[in-house]
C-alpha cells in the first residue's frame, strides 16, 4: 500500500494513503476532539457526516480550517491541531451547538456519559454567547427507549446504526435547517414503528436524546415491599461489562462482586440467566436434532435451517420483515423468558409462594428485553413472567445509589437451584456462543459419544457473518452465524431464495452479540472494549468445571422433578412460544 508522510503538531508521521487526518493524528497519540464522528474499528462501522466541525484543524497553506474526520491526509501536509485559530473555531461551534440545547445536565440521564458535556468541559465553555430560539419536540416513550429530541445534535449516528448496520430503517433525518431532527416515519412513536428495540441507536447516541426506559424506581419499590419475594437473574454478558462502571479495566470479570452487590441490594435470591441458557440449549438443541433427523429421514415438511430465537430484537425483526419465514426459528423462548416462566412455576411452587407475590427482575445487557418482558404472551392472567428488566447501566446506577462500595465487595456465589450454570450458558453472551453451546450438547446427544474437544474456535470471532462445518461423527453439520441485523438479513435472503445451505444459524442483533448490547456501559466508539468483553466471556467458560448444558445437575433435576423431558407437553407450554406476522398489509378501500 502507498505510504505518505506528513507533519502533525511538529511531529512527522507516515500513514497509508487514504487515511484521514483524524486517524493519522491518532497514530502519534494526538487525539483531536470529535462529536459527530464515530468509528468502530474491526467492525466496519463508521459514521462520518462531517457535520459538526468540532474536529477542525489548520492545514498550512489552506484558507479554511479542515474537518479532520473527513479530510484525507496528503503528502507533505503541515497540520496544527491546537493553534489559537483552531481553538477559537472549535469553541465557537461547541457554543453554537449548546445554544440550541436544553441546559438540563443536572437531571439528564446521560450526565457523566455525555459526549457533548465532555466536549464543553474540555473546551472550558463557561458562557454561551449566542442566544436564540431552541428547537422543541414532543417526547416519545416506548416500552424500552425514550426519545427526547430536544437534546439531539444531529450527529446522525443513530440513523447510521438503524439503517446501515441494522437495516431496520426506523430512523431518518427529517425536515431541514433549524427544524431538522431524526425521527421514525411520519413522526410516529417508536412503539408504532418497525423498531426492534435493539438499542444500538441508544448505544451510540452521544447525548441524552436517546436513553432507556428506567425501571430502577419500580425495582426499588419491589425491594422495599415486605410482602414480596424478589428474585433476580443476571444475563451472561453483564458480568463481563459491569466492572467498567466502577473503574475496572474492560474485560474484567466481576461475577462474584456482582452477586454480592445484588444480595446487598436486598434481592431474596440471586439467580443466573445462565441457568436458563442451559435450559434453552436443552430445548433448542433437542428441537434442532429432531428437525435434523426428520430431515435426514426424508421428511419434506421439515424446514431447515433452524434459527436461534434467544434475541428478542431479532424476533421482532423477522416478525416485521420476514413474516413468511416465521416458522423457521426455533420455538424456544429466550433465556430471560424461560427463567421467568420457571421461576413463577417450579420455583414458586417449591417455595410455596403465590406468583403474584414473587417479583422477577432481570439484569440484561439489552434494551429489547424490556420490550420482550412486556409482550402479552409472556404473562399469566396479566401477571408477567418477568416483572422488570433493567440494563447493566441501570444496575450500576442502583449500586451507586445504594452506596455500595463495589470494588471492596467480596466474591459471592449464586443461590440454588436457579443459579447453577455451565460454561455453555456463559458463552451465550457473545456472538457464536449460543451455537457453540448448542453444538456441545447436540453432538453428545446425537452421537452418544463424549466430545473430543470443547472449544470450537471455528465458531468464534468478530466477523459479521461466519460459517463452519462441524463433524458430528461422520455427519457434517453446516453452521452459519450472523451478528448485527444487516448481516442477519443477508442470511435470511439466502434462505428465502433457496440458496442457503446451512443446517443451523445463530443470530444476534447487536454487533458482537450481547456483549455489545444496547444496555451495556457505553463503549463511546471503542470497539476494543467489545473484544475484551468477548475474551472475558470465554475465560469464564474455560474456568467452569461443567461446560455442557446437559451436565448441569440442576437442569437434570428440573427435568426429573418437573418438566419430564425436553419438548414434553409441560416444557412446550412453559418454554416455547410462537411468532406473529407484524408486517404491513395494503388493502383496497371499498
Amino acid at each position, binding site marked *: 500500500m502507498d505510504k505518505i508522510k506528513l507533519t502533525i503538531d511538529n511531529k512527522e508521521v507516515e500513514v497509508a494513503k487514504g487515511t484521514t487526518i483524524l486517524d493519522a493524528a491518532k497514530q502519534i497519540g494526538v487525539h483531536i476532539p470529535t462529536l459527530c464522528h464515530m468509528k468502530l474499528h474491526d467492525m466496519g462501522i463508521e459514521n462520518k457526516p462531517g457535520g459538526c466541525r468540532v474536529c477542525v484543524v489548520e492545514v498550512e497553506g489552506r484558507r479554511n480550517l479542515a474537518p479532520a474526520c473527513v479530510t484525507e491526509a496528503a503528502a507533505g501536509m503541515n497540520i496544527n491541531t491546537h493553534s489559537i485559530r483552531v481553538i477559537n473555531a472549535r469553541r465557537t461551534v461547541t457554543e453554537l451547538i449548546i445554544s440550541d440545547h436544553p441546559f438540563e445536565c443536572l437531571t439528564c440521564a446521560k450526565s457523566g456519559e455525555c459526549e457533548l458535556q465532555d466536549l464543553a468541559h474540555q473546551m472550558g465553555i463557561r458562557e454561551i454567547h449566542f442566544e436564540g430560539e431552541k428547537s422543541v419536540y414532543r417526547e416519545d416513550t416506548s416500552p424500552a427507549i425514550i426519545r427526547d429530541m430536544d437534546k439531539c445534535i444531529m450527529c446522525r449516528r443513530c440513523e447510521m446504526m438503524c439503517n446501515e448496520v441494522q437495516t431496520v430503517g426506523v430512523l*431518518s433525518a427529517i425536515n431541514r435547517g433549524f427544524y431538522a431532527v431524526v425521527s421514525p416515519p411520519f413522526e410516529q412513536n417508536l412503539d408504532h414503528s418497525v423498531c426492534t428495540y435493539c438499542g444500538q441507536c441508544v448505544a451510540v447516541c452521544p447525548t441524552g436524546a436517546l436513553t432507556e426506559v428506567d425501571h430502577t424506581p419500580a425495582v426499588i419499590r419491589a425491594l422495599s415491599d415486605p410482602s414480596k419475594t424478589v428474585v433476580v437473574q443476571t444475563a451472561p454478558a453483564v458480568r463481563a461489562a459491569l466492572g467498567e462502571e466502577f473503574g475496572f479495566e474492560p474485560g474484567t470479570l466481576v461475577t462474584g462482586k456482582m452477586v454480592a452487590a445484588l444480595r446487598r441490594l436486598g434481592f431474596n435470591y440471586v439467580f443466573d440467566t445462565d441457568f436458563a441458557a442451559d435450559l434453552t440449549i436443552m430445548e433448542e438443541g433437542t428441537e434442532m436434532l429432531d428437525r435434523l433427523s426428520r430431515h435426514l429421514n426424508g421428511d419434506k415438511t421439515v424446514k431447515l435451517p433452524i434459527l436461534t430465537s434467544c434475541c428478542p430484537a431479532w424476533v421482532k425483526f423477522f416478525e416485521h420483515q420476514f413474516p413468511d419465514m416465521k416458522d423457521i426459528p426455533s420455538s424456544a423462548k429466550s433465556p430471560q423468558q424461560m427463567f421467568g416462566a420457571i421461576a413463577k412455576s417450579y420455583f414458586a411452587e417449591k417455595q410455596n409462594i403465590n406468583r403474584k407475590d414473587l417479583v422477577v427482575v432481570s439484569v440484561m445487557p439489552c434494551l429489547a428485553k424490556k420490550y420482550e418482558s412486556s409482550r402479552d404472551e409472556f404473562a399469566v392472567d396479566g401477571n408477567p413472567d418477568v416483572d422488570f428488566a433493567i440494563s447493566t447501566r441501570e444496575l450500576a446506577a442502583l449500586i451507586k445509589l445504594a452506596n455500595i462500595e463495589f470494588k471492596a465487595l467480596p466474591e459471592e456465589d449464586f443461590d440454588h437451584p436457579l443459579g447453577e450454570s455451565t460454561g455453555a450458558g456463559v458463552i451465550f453472551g457473545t456472538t457464536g456462543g449460543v451455537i457453540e453451546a448448542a453444538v456441545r450438547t447436540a453432538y453428545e446427544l446425537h452421537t452418544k459419544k463424549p466430545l473430543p474437544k470443547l472449544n470450537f474456535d471455528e465458531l468464534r470471532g468478530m466477523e459479521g457473518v461466519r460459517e463452519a462445518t462441524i463433524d458430528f461423527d461422520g455427519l457434517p453439520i453446516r453452521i452459519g452465524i450472523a451478528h448485527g441485523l444487516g448481516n442477519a438479513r443477508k442470511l435470511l435472503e439466502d434462505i428465502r431464495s433457496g440458496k442457503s445451505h446451512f443446517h443451523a444459524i445463530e443470530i444476534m442483533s447487536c454487533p458482537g452479540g450481547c456483549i455489545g448490547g444496547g444496555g451495556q456501559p457505553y463503549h463511546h466508539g471503542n470497539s476494543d472494549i467489545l473484544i475484551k468483553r468477548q475474551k472475558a466471556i470465554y475465560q469464564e467458560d474455560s474456568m467452569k468445571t461443567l461446560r455442557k448444558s446437559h451436565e448441569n445437575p440442576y437442569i437434570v433435576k428440573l427435568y426429573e422433578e418437573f418438566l419430564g423431558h425436553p419438548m414434553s407437553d409441560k416444557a412446550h407450554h412453559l418454554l416455547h412460544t410462537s411468532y406473529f406476522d407484524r408486517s404491513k398489509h395494503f388493502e383496497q378501500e371499498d
Partner: protein
Amino acid sequence: MPKIKLTEYATNLVKEICAKFNNNEGELINVLHQVQNKLGYLPAEIQELIAQELNISAAKVYGVVTFYSYFTMKPQGEFPISVCMGTACYVRGAEQVLDEIKRQLRIDVGETTPDGKFSLSALRCVGACGLAPVVLVGEKVHGRVATVDVKKILAEYKSGCLSDKE
C-alpha cells in the same frame, strides 16, 4: 398485522409510476414529484406504498418529503397559491403580499380554504427575480404583485374565468 387502506386508483397509480422508474430508489424524488402531481398531495399511506415499491424504508421517504417544501402531506386546494419568499421577492414586499393573502383567505401557510378552492404555501426563489415579488397560482406566474392586487387576483380564480381572460 397493521393494515393500510388505499383506493384502487391510488394504488395502481403509485405502482405504475414506480414501475416507470424501474422501481429504482435513486428516482425517489421523481416518483414523489409525479405522484404528487397526480394526487395533489402525499399522505402517509401513499408514502408507505412508495417505500414498499422502491424497497426502501418509509422513514427515508418521509425524510425526503419533509426536506423539500415542495412536497405536501395535506390535500391541496383546487388553486394552490405559492408566494415566493426568496431574497429579491422578500425585499420587494413579498411578506406583506403573503399576509394580505392570508387575511383575505383566512388561512395560514400550509392550509387549505374550507371550500377546497385555495391552499397557500411559501417558496424559496422560483427563478423569476426580475418579476419580484412573485405569486404562483397553479402553474401561472403573477409578477410585481402588490398588496392591492391580491383581491383582483383571487377574484379571477373565484369566478373561474381564468382561461377566457388570457
